[in-house]
């Protein structure tokens, strides 16, 4: 089985974000970038499927400037076999990104194409399903369980008040949610081996997107917490605050 995992490099969720001049992008200075956390579920799923099958190939695919190669190597360190860096500028328009990915994936002979359910930098949730559409493949989003057998995938999805089980033939596009698995840490040998794994660089030209970002704003700062007391003695004051101030009781 040949599995593609499409990943994105995003600011660490613990990073302190400032908005760059112009107001439509974040200032990358001093910000730590990591693999999109949902993409880690996709990477883990790909590696685990190959391990279970005892054969196959796993490939990481990422669009971006050269800095994305560091993120790609994180996936190689976790155990992905090889990678393709689609060297170009990512777009705020999901369709523009999806077209670049679909053009590369088409004819690649992949049985499964995995994504994170969304990238935490823009919460777009577009690219995975759009790639499926462009490739005319079945798609299941936000999966929390996955089984592959006899040329088809069976997935579970968390829906309001319950769980949905769906199945589709391969090849298919799946986007992965938290709960699917526990991504492994890249071990030290994996980190050393990642340098030696193939990383193909393919320059790409992204079509101009139709959707553009007009402005970015940080959420209003949260007021500081308040300690109303300690131990059991704090309970009346806490109930009072939760009832009359927070109005949650």
């Amino acid at each position, binding site marked *: 089985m040949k599995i593609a995992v499409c990943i994105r490099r995003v600011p660490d*969720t*613990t990073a*302190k974000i400032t908005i760059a001049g112009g107001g439509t992008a974040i200032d990358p200075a*001093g910000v*730590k970038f990591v693999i999109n956390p949902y993409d880690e579920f996709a990477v883990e799923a790909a590696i685990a499927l190959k391990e279970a099958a005892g054969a196959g190939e796993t490939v990481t695919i990422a669009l971006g400037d050269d800095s994305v190669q*560091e993120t790609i*190597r*994180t996936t190689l*360190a976790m155990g992905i076999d090889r990678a393709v860096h689609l060297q170009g500028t990512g777009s705020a328009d999901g369709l523009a990104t999806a077209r670049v990915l679909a053009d590369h994936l088409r004819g690649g002979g992949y049985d499964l194409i995995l994504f994170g359910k969304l990238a935490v930098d823009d919460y777009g949730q577009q690219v995975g399903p759009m790639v499926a559409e462009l490739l005319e493949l079945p798609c299941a989003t936000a999966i929390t369980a996955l089984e592959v057998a006899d040329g088809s995938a069976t997935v579970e999805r968390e829906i309001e008040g319950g769980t949905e089980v769906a199945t589709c033939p391969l090849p298919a596009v799946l986007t992965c949610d938290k709960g699917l698995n526990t991504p492994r*840490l*890249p*071990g*030290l*040998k994996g*980190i*050393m081996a990642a*340098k030696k794994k193939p990383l193909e660089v393919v320059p790409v030209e992204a079509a101009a997107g139709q959707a553009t970002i007009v402005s970015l704003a940080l959420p209003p700062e949260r007021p*500081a*917490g*308040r*300690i109303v007391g300690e131990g059991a003695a704090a309970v009346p004051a806490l109930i009072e605050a939760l009832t009359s101030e927070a109005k949650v009781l």
Partner: protein
Amino acid sequence: MAGSSEYTGVDFYDMDSLLSEEERAVRDTVRQWVTEALIPVIGPAYIEGRFPKELIAGMAELGLFGANLPEEYGCAGLNNVAYGLIMQELERGDSGIRSFASVQGALVMYPIHAFGSEEQKQYWLPRLASGEEIGCFGLTEPDFGSNPGGMITTARETADGWVLNGTKMWITNGSQATVAIVWAKTGAIDDPKSVRGFIVPTSTPGFTGKDQHGKLSLRASDTSELHLQDVHVPKDALLPHSGGMKSPLKCLTQARYGIAWGGVGAAMACYDEARRYAMNRVMFDRPIAATQLQQERLAEMLTEITKGQLLSLQLGRLKDRGTMTPQQVSLAKRNNVNMACEVAREARRLLGANGILIEYHSMRHLANLESVYTYEGTHDMHSLILGQEITGIAAY
């Protein structure tokens, strides 16, 4: 510098820009493992006075044991800066857990790699890297700590091997180890040149290891006494390339190198805890971080940590270049561990009454660091090593 609840280290001087991508990746992996696997279990283990054995498999799987030894022996083949970062991150969790990894890597795997035969390396190193075998290092004796050359443990050659007799004390991992590197005199008792190293499986008849009880420090680490009574080992138990006190001292240089990094990690943990606490703890209607006294404490901690980080990093670059001297290691171990003791103490004080509870980390670090200050060459001995380096006169 306020931020999320997750530990993200302390990096005031953009030290990250001095690290390679690989070094950062190693650091991040170990940091995350410490957060997810070590921190949740360390408090109860410390109170119970128990080494958390359940962590061994995870450490082995990540490849933390002997990580700077070559890949051909099942190790990760990292450079020494990456190795140092592992020690820093482990000691961010607990000095006892870092000690476990230091002993396994620097005091057991290193001497086998440096002084062992090819057969010994091929047999032991992969097993120690995978955690299948746990090692300990028997050098210190009840009456010979800072002066190990005075040891009275002996190894006498017989027709088919060696017979070892003696007692070792303050041995980390001693009671759980499956194999011990034992240093013993093969010649006259006043001849430190006759010291050789032996690989002794702890199941060998006559070998006993028993826990030392009553420790108020390194409680999540096994510290043991080893007794060797007529312990017969075959000829190939001898580390063929070991000879004289310089062999065990070379091992100590390796371990001390890691400790210089580890001290910084413990200090980073305490500073991080103190800073968060100061921002959240309200007294007189404002966070205690708004008071000059606590700000001065935090400023001092950050300054000393930053200096210690630069010290250990440059020491690592020297080690990777092959020019690091034992005296340079002494300076870094002495400075960084003493610094960590000071930072831990100030952090504990900033935490007020809460600071004496196990749910906070600073007092555990403070208690641990008193051992780290004392072992692997006491602070005072490192002063004398530096004194001798400066003046040419030995004062010990």
